[in-house]
């Protein structure tokens, strides 16, 4: 009997192991290995022939010089990344919650709304970006021509005055789908009896319900979004690679994209150590701030009680 159990356990472990081995291998190679190598590289100097020597903190110095010197791309990238997060925090997050709450309350056309906002999540990201790009390239100028006789309608993704705004709009629009899946589901998990109890206690309109019941109860989900968003503030390239690949207009650059381009365009491996040092500097900056942010959210967030 014991032997049979052991065999069963063994096969169960083998079964589970067969599933987790491949992802673990990927994790070990593409996360642990890559990051370990990146940390080492930050302290190395690699010449054109590939010879490696110890560089100390020289790469860090070079990166900081780039950051503080005449590098307009780096500056605009940093500003845009911060803008993206702040806009997401101040404008998008309240909208996500509001829309999610409307869906939760089963407002008129809630099923249609849910379907429409989910489309970007169902269809491949590249395809969505292509449709969006072609809409701006072909449909909008034609509409402007037909309606107002405007022959020179600017291309919103290329024009320096509109490109960043257009990218931002696309980011907000496409991220709605994720939020409108996650938040309403979190709201649906709230026990209806709590809401009924609230109504007995005088919560008699939707605003009060949202403020005193829904928000505190979905707060863990909310804070998770805020923290992961904050952690990715300097690494999220947004849709720039999908829209422009290597040729995004200067005005749209952000840190994630800047880094992507640096890695792609670096002429040979001698360029990687400075980038690795930069990555480490970014981590050193963002990691404690993320923990601080988490602590603030935990400390000052609404109490469920």
């Amino acid at each position, binding site marked *: 009997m014991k032997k049979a159990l052991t065999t069963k356990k063994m096969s169960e472990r083998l*079964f589970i192991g*067969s*599933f987790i081995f*491949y992802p673990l291998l990927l994790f070990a190679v593409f996360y642990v290995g890559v990051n370990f190598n990146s940390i080492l590289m930050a302290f190395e100097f690699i*010449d*054109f*022939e*590939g010879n490696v020597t110890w560089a100390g903190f020289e790469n860090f110095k070079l990166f900081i010089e780039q950051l503080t010197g*005449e590098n*307009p*791309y780096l500056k605009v990238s940093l500003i845009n990344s911060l803008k993206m997060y702040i806009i997401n925090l101040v404008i998008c997050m309240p909208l996500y919650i509001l829309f999610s709450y409307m869906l939760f309350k089963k407002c008129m056309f809630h099923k249609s709304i849910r379907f429409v906002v989910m489309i970007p999540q169902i269809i491949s990201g590249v395809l969505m970006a292509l449709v969006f*790009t072609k809409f*701006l*390239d072909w449909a909008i*100028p*034609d509409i402007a*021509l037909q309606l107002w006789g405007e*022959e*020179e*309608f*600017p*291309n919103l*993704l*290329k024009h*320096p005055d509109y490109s960043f705004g257009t990218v931002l709009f696309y980011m907000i629009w496409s991220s709605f789908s994720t939020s409108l899946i996650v938040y309403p589901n979190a709201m649906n998990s709230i026990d209806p009896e709590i809401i009924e109890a609230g109504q007995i206690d005088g919560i008699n309109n939707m605003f009060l319900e949202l403020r005193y019941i829904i928000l505190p109860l979905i707060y863990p989900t909310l804070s998770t979004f805020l923290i992961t968003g904050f952690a990715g503030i300097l690494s999220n390239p947004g849709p720039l690679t999908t*829209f*422009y690949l290597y*040729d995004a*207009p*200067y005005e749209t650059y952000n840190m994630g994209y800047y880094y992507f381009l*640096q890695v*792609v*365009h*670096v*002429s*040979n491996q*001698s*360029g990687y150590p*400075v980038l690795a040092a930069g990555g480490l500097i970014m981590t050193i900056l963002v990691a404690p701030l993320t923990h601080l942010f988490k602590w603030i959210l935990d400390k000052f967030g609404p109490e469920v009680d």
Partner: protein
Amino acid sequence: MKKKIIATILTVGTLLSATACGGTVVDGIDKNKTQIYISIYNGGAGYSWIEKQKNVWNAGNEKYEVVLQPEKTSTKTVLNEVTTNSASVDVYYLAEAGYRAAISKDSLEDLSDILTMKVDGTEKTIGDKLTANQAYYNTWKEYASKSGEGMYMLPYSDSFIGLVFDYDAFVENNWLTKASAADAQVTAALTAQGIVYEASGNALTFKSYTGSERVNYTEGDYIMTAGKDGKYGTYDDGQPQTLEEWRTMINKIVSVGSNKALIWTGQYSGYTEDIVAAMMTQYSGLDAYNAYYSFDSKGEEIKMYDGSEKVITPDNGYAVYGLEGYQKAVEFMDTYFNNSRYVHAKSKSNISHSEAQNLYLLGYRNESSNPFSAMIVEGGWWENEARAMFNAIAERDADRGYGKRDYRYMLLPALDGQAGIDGEGNGSVLAVRNSGAIIVPKCSDSGKLAAIKDFLAYTLSDENLRAFTRETGVINSYDYELTEADREEMTPFANTVWDIYHDTENIAMIRPTLDFACSPIKFATSGCHNYYLPVKATVPYSCVIDALEAGASISEIVEGTAGYYNTDKWNDLLGQAKAAGFYS
């Protein structure tokens, strides 16, 4: 059981996803043979031309089999693959030839043996075909060898970019200049050339030809002015020669309906950089162009935009970015490419090269959303690339099918004070965008390597080189002749491309993409810059037209570009290049 089924499905799924990388092999493989995998760049020239050649070679080889993988792998990816010994193919046919770093790192096989092979049944070797154009060979040798030793890349295709126009439409609309029947010099020159003509009012029409050189008129065609080459019946007949004539022609074009003069792909706006390069070189001369990439003017002074003259050496190499010709090119671009009156609005959007081609071809319908565009910025491969649209149009209008219209290249006009290609203001410059290369990553199997070399040599036989050009319209940079039958089989555009490419007396081909990629300041340093660095308020743009469209003025671009590198920045880059063994 259920678990087993799920596990099997998931395992298969995992394995499939894990093996999904890599190019697509176009056909099956022969298990009795050793495969030679060839990655062929699937661009404008396509790959059907090599399919036929490999089928014949495979049929005659008992041990090895060539298998094609058509793909569009970037230079960066291929460089990474070959320098890290992770290439998944045995041979690459590439659209660009910036692999000097791989040669320096000893990642490629030396293909010198191929140059000594005789594949045409004559004493002519492949090397002889390559050295026929000595100037080109010298440059290629510098980039493809290790300090002059070996040959680690073989040329594949050589396609220039320029302004393509529909000659038939231009003649119909009177946008080109007709030869005058009243001009005795014209009629005398025609007679001397063996062209028999008829007067038609003040114009002349072609009747017959008694000369030996090829002319591109057929009976009844209007005879145009001779063009820059001074000959009748050639690729540049009727074209404007001076900037004033050019301006007149452009204004004539846009004065009709909603016509536009120019269209190009907004997605790859870098195509227009070849116009900048050609104009810059036409103005400042070939020596200045060479100094632009080698950072060495060989002791000669070259003229800068601010009126000064400088001798360029690697130590002050950054000064070359203030070249006067660059200013002239930016002015030209601003006047004609940054003017909504002249330019199709879609050029400012993200349209791809295929979309630009389609708009250009469909422009004759003059729809409100797609006005007629007189010229498109395109390479020699475009007609082959746009075959599908030609075929679709032909279903409604057979006269507009593939090869039916006489597309040609409009040469750039001469600027006042230009050096031209001879230093005396004559000739035209065109810029090659795709200087393709064939490379073979290090191969430890000597038998396979010998077979690879045999196949490569086979594709470089005169017969196969002719077939390549006949089918694609693209030229390979070896010395081979086309027969009259070949020429008849080719489209008028392909014939024009061939004639321009081989008119070394009047046309100079420059290769900025190749020269930039092979410049040690680019590939042997951590510096990352574009080849013309148009700068607007310290922000570098990837091409002049992008900077102009972003609102930069001519002076902002010219001064910004000239001042982008200071001594410190330059010394840093130069120091890296010198440490890697260059510019010493």
